[in-house]
């Protein structure tokens, strides 16, 4: 029998493509996108006031680091996201587990949490400024509010979907309630919980920027509002791309840790 060969390209539904070709295609779109951007800006189709060219953007980015201590802004933003997100996890994961495990806890909390989930975190900013001022507390609270209800609900759903057959098997092996929770429900739910934390961390990045657009004196969001008043579109775009790159890095790191911790679930 001939070994299966990946053709470089074949116009057939669901036909897998060569892994290297996949890379090339993915990269190609970035190049097309940047080229299009360059043509529009450098070719004079749009005024530099509204959109900086890729080169101008890079130049502004360089200046941000060398002249404006941009690394400090990045540090502040990362710190806010991490503190807010970790606090949300510390509150939400145990609550979600309790809700998923015990139906009376679920009945007690689920309607309220479901309601809170639809409250937009950014709409709380004026209130939070009133309550917590314009310092770090307020920004961290925005991220906390934006993440905590989502995590609670998603964790409780995951935990509630624990495999009943495994729970029954554990009972016939002599496990009691405590053993069922600690040795069956939690290890079974852990990989999925880690996955939803990764997802919510991605959302936290968008909350932090919103929080920083209003009443901040540092951070990537603050830099973006400043640049807006100076009509420096190069800096704005550089700031946006920075957020994207940081988000991507944290996502990859999270994924790598999950894969290591829960190797069994990817077998």
């Amino acid at each position, binding site marked *: 029998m001939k070994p299966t060969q990946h053709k470089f390209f074949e116009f057939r539904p669901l036909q897998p493509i060569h892994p290297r070709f996949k890379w090339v295609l993915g990269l190609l779109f970035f190049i097309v996108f940047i080229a299009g951007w360059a043509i529009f800006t450098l070719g004079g189709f749009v005024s530099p006031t509204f959109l900086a060219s890729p080169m101008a953007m890079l130049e502004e980015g360089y200046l941000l680091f060398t002249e404006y201590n941009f690394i400090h802004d990045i540090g502040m933003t990362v710190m806010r996201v991490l503190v807010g997100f970790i606090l949300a996890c510390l509150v939400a994961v145990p609550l979600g587990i309790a809700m998923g495990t015990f139906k009376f806890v679920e009945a007690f909390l689920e309607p309220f949490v479901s309601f809170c989930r639809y409250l937009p975190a950014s709409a709380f900013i004026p209130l939070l400024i009133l309550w917590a001022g314009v310092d770090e507390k307020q920004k961290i609270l925005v991220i906390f509010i934006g993440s905590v209800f989502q995590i609670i609900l998603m964790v409780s759903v995951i935990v509630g979907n624990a495999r009943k*057959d*495994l729970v*029954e*098997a*554990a*009972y*016939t*092996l*002599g*496990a009691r309630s405590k*053993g069922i929770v600690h*040795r*069956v429900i939690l*290890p*079974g739910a*852990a990989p999925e919980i880690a996955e939803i934390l990764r997802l919510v961390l991605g959302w936290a990045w968008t909350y932090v920027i919103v929080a920083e657009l209003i009443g901040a004196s540092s951070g990537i969001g603050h830099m973006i509002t400043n640049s807006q008043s100076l009509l420096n579109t190069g800096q704005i775009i550089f700031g946006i791309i920075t957020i994207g790159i940081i988000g991507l890095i944290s996502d990859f790191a999270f994924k790598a840790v999950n894969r290591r911790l*829960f190797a*069994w*679930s990817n*077998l």
Partner: protein
Amino acid sequence: MSQLEIQNISRVFPGKKGTQTQALTPINFNVNENDFVTILGPSGCGKSTMLRIIAGLDHPTTGQVLLDGKRITGPGADRGMVFQSYTLFPWLTVEQNICFGLREKGMSAAEQKERSSYFINRVGLKGFEQHFPKQLSGGMQQRTAIARALANDPKILLLDEPFGALDNQTRLLMQELLLGIWESAQKTVLFVTHDIDESIFMANRIAVFSARPGRIKTEIKVNLPHPRHYTVKTTPEFMELKAVLTEEIRAEAIAAEQR
């Protein structure tokens, strides 16, 4: 006195709009210590329900089950169970799965290791101790499940169509393996199946279930000598039993179809 006494067990499942499904009509049945009993019946006849009630995973509507004279009120380590679906804990290795119940009992690590390695050898999984369930074939997973249940040293082993999901060849080998373990270790076994050959080959006694609502229609003793070799399946005695059971089960299967 019988080790397991099933007294007037019935089970009614409430259905939609107040309808009720009678899964089991009152059943009386006893199992002696170290007996190997198979429960044979068409699918949906309530035989699994009875096993789950004995395991303590379901409650009877009427009646009670006594194990060594004590009433069963919930699941416990004294009744080991092997399920038809694969119920190994996917995050634990073969060895850790087998040690699950032992750890729950608070057994020392050294003792756990010793017991698990004995049973790993017994079910022929030496070399696979550190494998995860997903890395094993269906047959190997069920062998691990049997080892896991036996390592706990239950008074009675309950098996709910444990080989039902396996291919036929693997299934035959698993039957020989389990029978071999029973012949050497002596243990009370209750084995639910819908496979006639399987029910004869393994059992000292076969309880034939009727179609739903389930009840025990007949009990048949199997007097084939032990140790049993797979070749017993072609002997005239075996064939005779098979002919009788085929008639019994056929009538019930037809009844189940026409319900």
